[in-house]
């Protein structure tokens, strides 16, 4: 018995649907290029080779947190606790090394482990008790800020702990800045390594693809027999780890712990992820987009600094406008996708 063969190619409109995934991230990259060229045209010294690398120094913590947030948002969740967890990690590093006399590497290890455990517990509450991510991570936001303040309500210096000098040890590329080269400290490499690992995990492992599947449609993922529980708990564990690591990086960067550091950082991270083209409802986006999103926010501050007469609040307003633009863009793409299929 011969059976007919059915051939289907994505129609032209449908092929666009496939490309639609790249529209938001394309817009982000274009925006980034536009901002850089605009800066070059308007300001002297904008061509300083250290300008771009500097974005990866001051924003290393945000980048790491953004990577963790990308996992969570791709899976369809949200994590409000990252800013507080970061502040707590820095403070815990300071307290363990300065006051408790724990060796620095051990302190860092403990802090990172705590980040993972805390994220895992949050994930368990979200998945097994079906508590909304917004509320479950709100607990972390309050709890870790409170614990941080209880350790110390004032800045704690880690200047005397030699271990924390490591992070800002610079590596030069192409000679010194004066000769047209640039330099990056170790902590930037740490951030870039996190991005690289996240990229590989998201795109080349079962867990990573599971994150996309769960974010696309949790019910379907369950019926496909994918490990939904492991995936959902996993993304919060990753986010907890990233927030703790960002706290360690912050300890490297400033060698001090400020109990109020990172207030509102969760919003910056969410904004960077969304501006990077990731759908806030989950299932679509790229971790490299988040890198672009963080760079947009960093470059924005740089331009405002160069302009001199602009004030820092313009950064917030512009970020809000960009958010609006990207959310509307995603909405339009989603709607046209729905229309085509019915």
């Amino acid at each position: 018995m011969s059976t007919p063969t059915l051939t289907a190619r994505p129609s032209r409109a449908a092929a666009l649907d496939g490309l639609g995934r790249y529209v938001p991230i394309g817009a982000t990259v274009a925006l980034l290029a536009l901002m850089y060229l605009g800066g070059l045209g308007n300001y002297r010294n904008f061509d300083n080779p250290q300008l771009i690398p500097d974005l990866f120094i001051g924003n290393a913590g945000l980048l790491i947190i953004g990577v963790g947030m990308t996992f969570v948002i791709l899976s369809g969740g949200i994590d409000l606790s990252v800013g507080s967890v970061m502040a707590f990690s820095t403070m815990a590093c300071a307290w363990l090394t300065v006051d408790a006399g724990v060796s620095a590497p051990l302190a860092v290890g403990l802090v990172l482990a705590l980040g993972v455990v805390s994220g895992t517990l949050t994930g368990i509450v979200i998945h097994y008790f079906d508590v909304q991510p917004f509320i479950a991570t709100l607990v972390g936001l309050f709890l870790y800020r409170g614990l941080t303040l209880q350790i110390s309500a004032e800045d704690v210096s880690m200047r005397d702990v030699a271990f924390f000098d490591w992070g800002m040890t610079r590596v030069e590329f192409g000679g010194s800045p004066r000769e047209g080269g640039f330099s990056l400290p170790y902590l930037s490499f740490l951030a870039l390594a996190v991005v690289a690992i996240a990229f590989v995990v998201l795109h080349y492992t079962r867990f990573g693809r599971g994150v996309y599947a769960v974010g696309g449609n949790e019910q379907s993922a369950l019926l496909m027999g994918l490990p939904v529980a492991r995936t959902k708990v996993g993304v919060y564990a990753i986010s907890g780890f990233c927030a703790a690591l960002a706290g360690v990086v912050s300890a490297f960067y400033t060698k001090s712990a400020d109990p109020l550091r990172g207030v509102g950082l969760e919003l910056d991270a969410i904004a960077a992820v969304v501006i990077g083209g990731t759908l806030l409802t989950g299932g679509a986006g790229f971790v490299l987009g988040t890198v672009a999103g963080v760079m947009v926010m960093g470059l924005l501050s740089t331009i405002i600094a160069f302009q001199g007469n602009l004030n820092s609040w313009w950064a917030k307003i512009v970020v809000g406008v960009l958010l609006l633009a990207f959310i509307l863009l995603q909405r339009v793409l989603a709607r046209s996708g729905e229309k085509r299929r019915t």
Partner: protein
Amino acid sequence: MNTVLTRVRAAAGDGWASPYLKRLIWPLAVLVLLIVVNVAITGFDFLVPGVQDGRLNGAFVNILRRSAPLLVIALGMTLVIATKGIDLSVGAVYAIGAAIACQWISGPNENALGTVLIAVAAALAVAAVIGAWNGTMVAAFGIQPIVATLILMIAGRGIAQLITGGQIPDVNDTSPFVELGRGAILTIPVPIVIAAAVLAAFAVLTRRTALGLLLESVGGNPEASRLAGIRAKGITILVYLVCGLCAGLAGIIGAANLGSADANNGGLWIELDAILAVVIGGTALIGGRFFLLGTTIGVVIIGTLEVTIINVGLSSQWQFTAKAIVVLAVALLQSPEFRAFTLQPFRRRTPAAAVQEAAK
């Protein structure tokens, strides 16, 4: 027929209130417990107000006075949550409202009543426009509430700073504006009067008209409401508008109390406290039934909690930890999965035991 009628009447008498009372019992019990703890430590002075300089004074009155802005916002939030929504931008709108009012008043005319009235009206108008914008994003463009209001949560403080030019505008103590925060009417502090008026207005608005019923219907089952012919879009926009208005009003009260507007820190995290108060008060985050009185109790619990922590001798930093515990407890208590999980090994267990379990 007659028997049914009498039964309906009887139900209307006691039955109407009972489901509401049932939901209020737990928050009320927590509040009473907190008050008892405070009274035990500081004596009855905690509860009993005195009169000083023509206005009521005392620990509890001060709690109410300081909670007034939060209450105003939380009431608006209650309506938004009833429609299955959420408004994250209220903190930023608080800052904007405060900024507009202070910036407008601060200057040579700051003692003129007219200036103050115009400033307040302008602040409220802008807050209402922002609220309507949020509502339009949610109802007309179909964007998730948490996403739609996130935009202004981030941009809003920038706008507030833009208005104040990055400064912290002061209003002189002689201006009638500060009366909104520090004055008293018949010895009752003005913020309490305003908050009570808002509560009363909301009660009338939702329970005397059909707004409350239609809100609960839209939040409880949007599709059934559509098929019943309810104009859900207009109602949703109205609710966000009202919530924005409340946030602006709260900002004005807060600024009047301080005599200044801090665009960066004014109303910081008030959206989280407001959501917390609504949830403590028994309104579920998934929408439907809402409890204005419950929200009120929730606000007072939060305010009393902060004072209690100091009174029992803990550092003020503990308030964050305490709030975290409260959020976790409430979230877990509302989770059917969690209740099933805890009831499993014991079969029968009192809710009180579950509260303790959750708090641990």
